[in-house]
């Protein structure tokens, strides 16, 4: 039983560490567009389209 509990604790710590690492790597800003034909794209952060859509988002989030 002790071994099982130890294994569960190690597994929980591993999952927490993995989620933490993924959370750090994930960029804080993201703009994605999906189209009617099923295709989609994620806009590069420095692009003018990104800034345009992020600007629209900021305008409504600031209200």
């Amino acid at each position, binding site marked *: 039983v002790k071994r099982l509990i130890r294994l569960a604790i190690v597994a929980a710590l591993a999952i927490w560490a993995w989620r933490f690492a993924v959370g750090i790597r994930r960029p804080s800003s993201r703009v994605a567009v999906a189209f*009617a034909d099923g*295709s989609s794209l994620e806009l590069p952060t420095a692009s003018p389209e990104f800034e345009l859509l*992020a600007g*629209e*988002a900021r*305008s409504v989030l600031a*209200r």
Partner: protein
Amino acid sequence: VDAASALTELVRASGQIERAVVFDAKGAVLGSTWAEDAGAQALVDAAGRALAAADELHASTDAARVEVELPEGGFFVLREGDRVIAATTGAKPTAGLVVYDLRTCLAQIDPPKPKRRRAKPKESPEDAPREDEA
């Protein structure tokens, strides 16, 4: 259900969505969680501009969804048929869940009722031109 009820349920059940508005292809607001019209209209205008900008990114098809995630919150626009739903969320939203909730909300809203057309008055046999008259 009507748009206002669907949006109320959406915000209650989602936990991530803070504000939402549903509007048609002409920009007419069908329902909103905003207390004042100006807030809803601002969200409609921003969503319309976002969709127009997203449409420019593809040569042959229209944008169906725009997702913007920023440190201060999220902004989502979903277009299905002639209806659009736009919503704002808090920081770090789970985009897949938000999109699922928005899609479910749109599906719950009743389609617009067709306009009633007046039935044409039936031509009486006396009004119809007779063959023997010609």
